[in-house]
């Protein structure tokens, strides 16, 4: 998947978890929870939804790498690098 596709997938996920969040308007280097105005419960829901939609389970020990939008997108991109764009499990 490309980074643009990953951002598109995240936008769909956030529409359910934090419907007011607008990925396009946030600073990609800002801590994600503050940028999205979400707490640790929402963050856990976000990770669960990412696993369900993209098939990537993020371990607790990897939280430090996904604390910003930039970090999260980069992390997912590296995990999904070998996956062809048309094999996205997103429906």
């Amino acid at each position, binding site marked *: 998947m490309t980074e643009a596709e990953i951002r598109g997938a995240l936008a769909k996920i956030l529409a359910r978890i934090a*419907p007011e969040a607008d990925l396009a308007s946030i600073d990609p280097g800002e801590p994600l929870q503050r940028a999205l105005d979400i707490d640790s419960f929402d963050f856990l829901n976000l990770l669960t939804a990412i696993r369900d939609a993209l098939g990537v389970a993020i371990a607790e020990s990897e939280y430090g790498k996904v604390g910003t939008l930039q970090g999260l997108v980069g992390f997912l991109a590296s995990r999904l690098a070998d996956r062809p764009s048309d094999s996205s499990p997103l429906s």
Partner: protein
Amino acid sequence: MPSLGADMREGTLLHWKVKPGDRVKRGDIIAEVATDKGDIEIEVFEDGVVTEILVEAGREVPVGELMARIDGGAVAVPKPEPARVRATPAARRLAEERGVALASVRGTGPEGAVTREDVEKAAQTSTAEPRERPAEGVRLAIAAAMARSNREIPHYYLETRIDMTRALAHLAEKNQALPLEERLLPAVLLLKAVALGLREVPELNGYWVDDSLQKKDEIHIGFAISLRKGGLVTPALHQVDRKSLPEIMAGLRDLVPRARAGKLRSSELSDATVTVTNLGDLGVETVYGVIYPPQVALVGFGKILERPWVENGMLGVRPVVSATLAGDHRATDGARGAAFLDALARRLQEPTEL
């Protein structure tokens, strides 16, 4: 109309879920009411048959007014809250800065959400005076409760710092075996440790009523949950001292979305015997809370931060959380508060016992 908070004065009956002749059991939801804290489901506390409905839907009812009869007993029930406005966090911040009422802005974002650009346009065309609107809803309820608290309760504050190394290691170990959606958050450990600490210092778990302390046997922790539209609610997690960590996490997973959707039950808003507020997610280091009357204590937690820590003459870096106790000096003295914080810290050093 039941009181769902120390300063609740009235509520609006949205609809009945029962009619005369219906049999009800303890715990059944019999009505839904709108309050300053959101829409609340009203439970019945005894078995019986509904014999009479005394209040029709849509009416604003003062606290204490009889609303229905069940087997000769009475059931009371709660002002609709303004519809939630969808807006991006950036739009909310800008609206606050510019004094723009989000409700008056037409949203062009996803699902009609108000965006930063929408607020900028509205601010340019608006001729209204900013920041002069009176408080309403949740904000007004909080204002009343907190003003009463500061007026009536002689607060004392104690703070301690707790090494979270063992607790977090225990959490990580447990989480390795749990599916993602069931992972435990540090808040769960903190809540359980508070509950067990209150068992050791029960004077902090109860109410100050009529110039006396009413200690409560059951430990129902009001957990402060911030609302996206602003303000907060503190619904109760019941009997936290008797619950396992996964049960507390399940309780929070259930409670948090319902609190934000305005779907709490009456008992969840009226039962808390103590309050815990955890502002770690917001980056706060130390919390000096205001007790929610008639409760006599509030426990605050800040962000778990890596700090220098000396133990046995050795300097190291540890994850450390600041825990504060706000106590009602009418009910307890600092010595008992200190005993509680000591118990709390001790419990968090024995996480396998939580």
